[in-house]
């Protein structure tokens, strides 16, 4: 069976983590994705880690993961010659995803003066949107997450607000672009109308669930910053065991009772100190001691197996060395190895979803392209002559 998106043509412009993550949602499922990269080198190619800590333009881990199954065209989008190439390409594409400063994005869109039948759907990604007094502000993964209200929500009082893992926010913004982008493609196929979608990263993060603002906007109840793990609804968080940590989400009944039974302390589930909402916060430390006493002589997987057997939501906190060996990951091939010329085998996460079976070929990942690997091929397909391609290179438009 063909891959599901084999008829879709996607152009991504900008070379950021966001736009690369967006394009990957299409490329590994069969879409033809062309990545337009600036001669000054895409952001995603500059991000560590690199194999053996040796910098190489084609070997960065984020690039190797998020640019799979794509083609690379190096092009200066700020030149008129570059815009002309984008224009020629664009009429053949279903979707363009752009992550550039608003001014540069607007200039590219202005060059695409097609009628509706030829005009592709366009999704723009900017920190604050294409309009408004902040449209030209520059942000990064840290600062945009601060805007979203999530770093304040998930941090500990007395300490700085805290982002999630590096690039979590911008990857989420890219995933937002992929979701609305594919919807726009579907919509144009149905009604012939190309969509111009404006994603402001701040709005994409703040409007999503897990945002403190949205929850507050419904009920108006200001929540103080946490002083650590919940003292009212426990256990909800990580607890030390013999070889690391176990994570629990078992604060409410019937889960709390199941947990107390599982650790051989059924009386705790009847003890007012631990179940009365007003008394409970004062007895957190006592409960922690009870649970960690039980965990002390068990390693993560022993505790995991025993607790899950009794119906308790608990799981091991895994570190990077353990991810590939988790039995479920092994069974499902959740991590794959892929050969990259010049690097050897690299390890990547497998498909984010499985269509029509665990091992179906709806998801096929090919190694990420080298910088400008397809520049010549794409320009020739656009009917540029050899001399014209040389002239574009000489003028610094391509690389």
């Amino acid at each position, binding site marked *: 069976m063909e891959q599901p998106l084999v008829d879709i043509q996607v152009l991504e412009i900008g070379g950021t983590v966001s736009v690369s993550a967006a394009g990957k949602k299409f490329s590994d499922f069969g879409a033809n994705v062309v990545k337009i990269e600036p001669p000054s080198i895409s952001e995603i190619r500059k991000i560590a880690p690199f194999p053996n800590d040796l910098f190489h333009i084609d070997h960065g881990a984020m690039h190797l*993961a998020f640019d799979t199954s794509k083609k690379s065209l190096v092009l200066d989008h700020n030149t008129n010659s570059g815009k002309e190439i984008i224009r020629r390409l664009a009429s053949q594409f279903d979707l363009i995803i752009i992550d550039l400063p608003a001014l540069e994005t607007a200039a590219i869109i202005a060059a695409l003066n097609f009628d509706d039948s030829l005009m592709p759907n366009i999704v723009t990604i900017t920190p604050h949107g294409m309009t408004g007094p902040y449209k030209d502000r520059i942000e*990064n993964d840290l600062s945009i997450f601060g805007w979203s209200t999530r770093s304040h929500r998930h941090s500990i009082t007395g300490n700085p607000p805290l982002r999630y893992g590096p690039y979590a926010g911008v990857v989420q913004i890219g995933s937002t672009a992929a979701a609305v982008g594919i919807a726009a*493609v579907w919509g144009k196929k149905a009604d012939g109308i190309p969509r111009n979608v404006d994603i402001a990263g701040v709005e994409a993060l703040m409007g999503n669930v897990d945002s403190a603002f949205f929850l507050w906007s419904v009920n108006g109840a200001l929540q103080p910053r946490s002083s650590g793990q919940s003292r009212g609804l426990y256990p909800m968080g990580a607890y030390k065991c013999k070889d690391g940590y176990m994570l629990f989400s078992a604060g409410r009944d019937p889960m709390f009772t199941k947990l107390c039974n599982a650790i051989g302390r059924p009386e705790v589930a009847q003890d007012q100190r631990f179940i009365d909402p007003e008394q409970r916060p004062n007895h957190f430390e006592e409960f922690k001691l009870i649970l960690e006493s039980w965990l002390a002589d068990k390693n993560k997987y022993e505790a995991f197996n025993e607790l899950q057997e009794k119906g308790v939501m608990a*799981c091991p906190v895994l570190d990077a060395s353990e991810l590939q060996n988790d039995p479920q990951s092994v069974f499902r091939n959740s991590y794959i190895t892929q050969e990259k010329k010049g690097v050897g085998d690299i390890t990547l996460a497998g498909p*984010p979803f499985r269509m029509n079976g665990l091992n179906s070929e709806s998801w096929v990942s090919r190694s990420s392209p080298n910088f400008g690997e397809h520049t010549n091929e794409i320009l020739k397909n656009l009917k540029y002559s050899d001399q014209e391609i040389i002239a574009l290179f000489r003028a610094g438009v391509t690389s």
Partner: protein
Amino acid sequence: MTSKMLSNINVVEIAEVWAGPFGCSLMGDLGANVIKVESYPRKSETRNAGDPRLDPRVAEGTGPIYERINTHHHGNRNKRNIALDIRTTEGRDVLTRLIKWGDILVESFSAGTIDRLGYGWEVVKKINERITMLSLAGWGQEGPYLGRIMFGVGFDAMAGHALIRGYEDGTPEEMIPILHSDATVPLTWIVAVLGALMQREKTNAGSYIDLAQIEDIAWQFPNIISEWTMNGRIPKPLGNSDPSIVPHNCYQASGEDRWINIAAENDLQWANLTEFMGNKSWSEIGHEWSSIIGRIKGRKEIDLAISDFVRQFDPFDLADQLQALGIIAAPVLAPPDPLMSPQLHDRNWFQIVDHPYIPERLLGGFLWKSEPDQPSWDRRAGLVGEDNNEVLLQLGFSTNDIDSMKKKDIIGETYVEERT
């Protein structure tokens, strides 16, 4: 113009909490016709509150508590709501007719549950061979963990994120578990189901999608596994720092619990920052901090210097001034700060939504804008069973059928305990 991108797609939702329901709301924002089949007579997870005096999720008001919980409102706009007991013969008849009507069926039960309820993929595709069915169990539908219990907080733990999210030199014990998957899985499954519908255009056949939420989280953090496989290192929490960029941190500003994120990603931004701070020499040749190498070596001292400087400024004013100089700077927002953002007001981001049981408020808006068809808030989060009559009549049930189902508590508009 209400968004029409997906106006030719019918979605049936039998899902709990956020990963399924919020994605269905996004589909509704895009114009899809979404019907939420809500658990009945058992309440949905997002309608369960503890003691309302102690549960901050409950909005003030006089109506039923289960209609005033913020977690429910945040995942259920732009869909119709029926409350149905699908364990009964009549309830199964309703669900079967919905599956015939639908293009997409979204379920988020633990693996195997939907099969036990009699609506596994083999059954569903016999009812409607063109439907796409999406299952969202945490570990997916196959594997040794089948039957185990997993909530959103666990995915970060088992994908390695829990050990890199935190303060430098901190431990995971005091960190608050997060629900990142609830925010990101919906964005992935929309691509999945629309991809399946595109395939259907050629094959005329539906698809089954097994989305293991933990695999979607793993997909988002390639740097975790790569640090180990490329260099044999186990990544540790970085706090707000970046190994290659200094300054890159969150600094305390003036005011109570006020903070600002500041980063200078290159020499020019650093020079502008030092000039603003009145210490231009820090960026001049000869000073150890003038190069990125020197700044990395002097990370702690630079952070201290900026911390001392920043404390005298309001974070919003300071961000305005630094941004004007081309420096990355942003206040850290907490509710109700976004309401004061001129940017969000200029873009009409906030939405006013009428609801019978919660006071009128400015709610958070959409994840995107689109031309020519902007998303619009056509339906607020449905009251339980609010659209029972409309949907069942549409499915061909008579008013007598509907009345009979109500009498038997197969459908309802209030929960049983509320009537006593």
